[in-house]
């Protein structure tokens, strides 16, 4: 009787060893956080979260540059975040002393939004730069943070207002 089931016991031992080996191997190979939230490595979420930010966010800028905030409140650019024009400034926010933002060329920056294009919404202020100003820097007449025409600026510069009248 016993002799008959001997080969079965041997088989059971082999299967048991294979099972134990599989469990040990699996525990060693599968990352600990796998399955924490679902069928993926839970630690991957923390790794993605730990990426450093490049754009500080306008709330950070407004903490120091209160004078600009007051200027912007007077004009339509109040809705435009600082870094939309000035670019990513997280490094500047971390170390305002040594990292200084580059000076902007208004002839390039303003055009990105305000150059006339048929696909832009009709109520959005847009000009054909060539007709409107001939490509001179926009801040010759406009104050970028409060973009209405600055008569004092026109008087100081050599531009006459007739030159700046264009499509609005």
């Amino acid at each position, binding site marked *: 009787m016993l002799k008959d089931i001997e080969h079965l016991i041997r088989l059971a031992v082999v299967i048991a060893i294979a099972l134990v080996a599989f469990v040990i191997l699996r525990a060693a190979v599968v990352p600990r956080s796998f399955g924490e939230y679902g069928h993926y490595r839970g630690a991957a979420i923390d790794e993605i979260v730990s990426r450093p930010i490049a754009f500080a966010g306008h709330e950070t800028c407004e903490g120091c540059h209160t004078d600009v905030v007051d200027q912007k409140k007077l004009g339509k650019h109040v809705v435009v975040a600082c870094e939309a024009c000035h670019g990513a400034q997280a490094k500047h926010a971390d170390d305002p002393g040594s990292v200084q933002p580059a000076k902007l060329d208004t002839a390039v920056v303003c055009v990105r939004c305000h150059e006339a294009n*048929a696909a832009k919404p009709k109520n959005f202020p847009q000009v054909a730069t060539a007709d409107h100003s001939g490509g001179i820097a926009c801040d010759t007449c406009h104050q970028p943070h409060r973009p209405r025409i600055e008569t004092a600026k026109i008087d100081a510069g050599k531009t006459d207002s007739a030159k700046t009248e264009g499509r609005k």
Partner: protein
Amino acid sequence: MEITRRRLLVLLPAAAVAWKFVLAGTPEAAPNYKLTEHWWGMLIDIPKCIGCGSCVRACAEENDVPEGYYRTWIERYHVADWKIEKPEVESPDGGKQGFPPHADDDGKNFFVPKLCNHCVDSPCTQVCPVGATFISPDGVVLVDKSYCLGCRYCVQACPYGCRFLNPKTNTAEKCTLCYHRITKGLTTACCEVCPTGARQLADLKNPRDPIHEFLKTHTVQVLKPHMATGAKVFYNGMDGSVR
């Protein structure tokens, strides 16, 4: 072991050193952020988009997107009056440098910003053979770079063309909805710089998020609803010609 005053004085600095060692290996934590309390999506208001390309530039800078690849991009649609079923779509350099004036100003012209739709039933997640792509508990479709094999199944599966293989790492890459920002209370880089508010990050689990009022009062669509992907990027004022 009895803790005497002398022993405690020795133990305390040792414990402090040990704790510092424990903390050193962990990534920067996002304090007070609970995965289960958010459900992220985005609202895109097409009539407000001016095609300036700020979002595309900001995305590239924030996420170190390689040149010539886009996690978000802008398409310019030109729907001619007599060819409404075949709109002309262009996206030079993903709209990164804005759009040159179009020769034909007739018909309908508008911009459509695109990005990952962070689908609830995302095809890209379903096809990943190794579990490298997943939907986080707060509804963002992410890629585990260290698990991705670079097999490109997900790139083919995405009906919106939102994925690409990073040529440097050879792993699949896509919009993370600036996961490293939104978990710290910031908005995404594209929403941050959008000058007209055409893009707005939306937390669908937050009852105070203005998205709920907007969805109630506007006719909002998603891209390719017939694919039943459960897209969470909502488009307001979208023309039927948008693909």
